[in-house]
């Protein structure tokens, strides 16, 4: 049983919550490796995927997770929903809620939208990414991937590298890693740095080469070209030369250190193909973990509604 009603951010999660989700995700990872990749756990439950911002990877991952849990799901996109016709988000949510849905999965360009949804419904809410704020299921699948690799999170050192300023992945990942006892260092050019790294409990540096030999995980953020306001970096070639993870830099990492990336990859920008496809890369493991971790989050949030009854 989780301590939260909704999964809006990782800062609200306790270490016990995160451990429960990751342990349960192992059970679902086993389901996903079988010939019959489906369990009846959420039979009869209805989940609405409200994607107000385009997303292919996250949405497919949630949809697969729902199907494998035997839930009924309904997809609502920005261009087809009445939010476009001028109905407010709160009105839309109240209307859909009146049809007795059990959960909303919300993806939005505006930070705070999932909280707004949660205030307008009794259904459970999962944040599938809101603006530059949070993307909690991405952080949880990252934690799952790292824990499966090292067998623990406590005491690991993780460098999060790149476009720190525009990253909702950072907003969820850094607090979750800290909660689980990992050390985090932020690396990025001055124009991409966060104003106050101590808020995340982290150090911040602009020198990627200084951390390479110290960390267990190099977590390379995607340079969010579509989110960039003005020219924060001179050119992608220069970014790659100063902050890209190439073979020369990868050779300086510890022998058992790994490389993660939330995807989609800008090959040749933040990461070179020879590293993305190397033995250090866990990028495909991350994608694979996504379905299992989302199944675990939905399973744990929707179960035990009548908590407290003895059997």
């Amino acid at each position, binding site marked *: 049983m989780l301590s939260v009603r909704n999964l809006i951010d990782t800062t609200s999660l306790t270490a016990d919550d995160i451990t429960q989700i990751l342990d349960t995700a192992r*059970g679902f990872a*086993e389901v996903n490796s079988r010939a019959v990749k489906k369990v*009846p*756990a959420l039979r009869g439950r209805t989940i609405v995927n409200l994607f107000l911002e385009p997303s292919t990877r996250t949405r497919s991952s949630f949809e697969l997770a729902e199907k494998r849990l035997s839930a009924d799901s309904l997809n609502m996109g920005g261009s087809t929903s009445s939010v476009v016709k001028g109905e407010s988000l709160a009105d839309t949510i109240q209307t859909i809620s009146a049809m007795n849905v059990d959960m909303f999965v919300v993806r939005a360009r505006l930070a705070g939208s999932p909280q707004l949804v949660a205030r307008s419904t009794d259904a459970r809410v999962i944040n599938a990414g809101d603006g530059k704020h949070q993307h909690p299921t991405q952080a949880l699948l990252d934690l799952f991937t790292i824990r499966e690799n090292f067998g623990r999170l406590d005491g690991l050192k993780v460098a999060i590298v790149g476009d720190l300023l525009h990253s909702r992945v950072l907003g969820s990942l850094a607090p979750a890693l800290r909660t689980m006892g990992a050390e985090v260092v932020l690396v990025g050019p001055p124009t991409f740095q966060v104003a106050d790294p101590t808020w995340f409990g982290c150090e911040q540096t602009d020198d990627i080469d200084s951390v390479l030999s110290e960390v267990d995980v190099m977590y390379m953020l995607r340079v969010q070209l579509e989110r960039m306001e003005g020219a924060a970096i001179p050119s992608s070639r220069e970014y790659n030369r100063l902050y890209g993870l190439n073979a020369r830099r990868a050779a300086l990492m510890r022998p058992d250190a790994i490389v993660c990336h939330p995807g989609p990859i800008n090959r040749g920008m933040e990461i070179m193909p020879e590293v993305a496809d190397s033995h250090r890369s866990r990028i495909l493991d991350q994608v694979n973990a996504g379905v299992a971790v989302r199944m675990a989050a939905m399973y744990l949030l929707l*179960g*035990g509604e009548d*908590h407290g009854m003895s059997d």
Partner: protein
Amino acid sequence: MAEPRLKAHIMDEAAVRRAMTRIAHEVVERNEGSGNVALVGIVRRGDPLARMLADEIEAIEGVRPPLGTLDTSFYRDDYSKRVVAVQQASEIPFAVDGRDIVLVDDVLYTGRTVRSALDAIMDYGRPATIQLAVLVDRGHRELPVRADYVGKNVPSSREEDVRVLVPPFDDGLAVEIWETPAEGRGE
């Protein structure tokens, strides 16, 4: 609320081991050898018991039967009442099709765990037979389920708690009945 207290020792370690030895012989007899038998322990305490049963069958037949672990959380019918995190993921490292599967659990009570285990194992394939071995049958079935192999029948009241102690989850190997004094019962 009153503390539960130990009412009776039902089986000690020697009794549990004798029961497991007898069940192993019965499994081998019923299946005319253990060549097609695979054991599946239901988490949590069915798992170490299945391991013990595999040891016993190996001692009789000279061959160790394949051994799996089954977590039934995702198949339970009381999901809306309570949800618990998975403690140990399922692992079925053999083909289920055509096998004689022996499910192993510590206590048979309402039959609901066995019902969920039947659904779960079917999602791995189509076994030739599914049989059920339990260390203790305490009665009070809510579904038409019966065990093929029983270590000991323990008539109990619903207010009592039949506890099977088995390493690595407990210190020592035993079966006990605990009761909660009436005035403090209820949640």
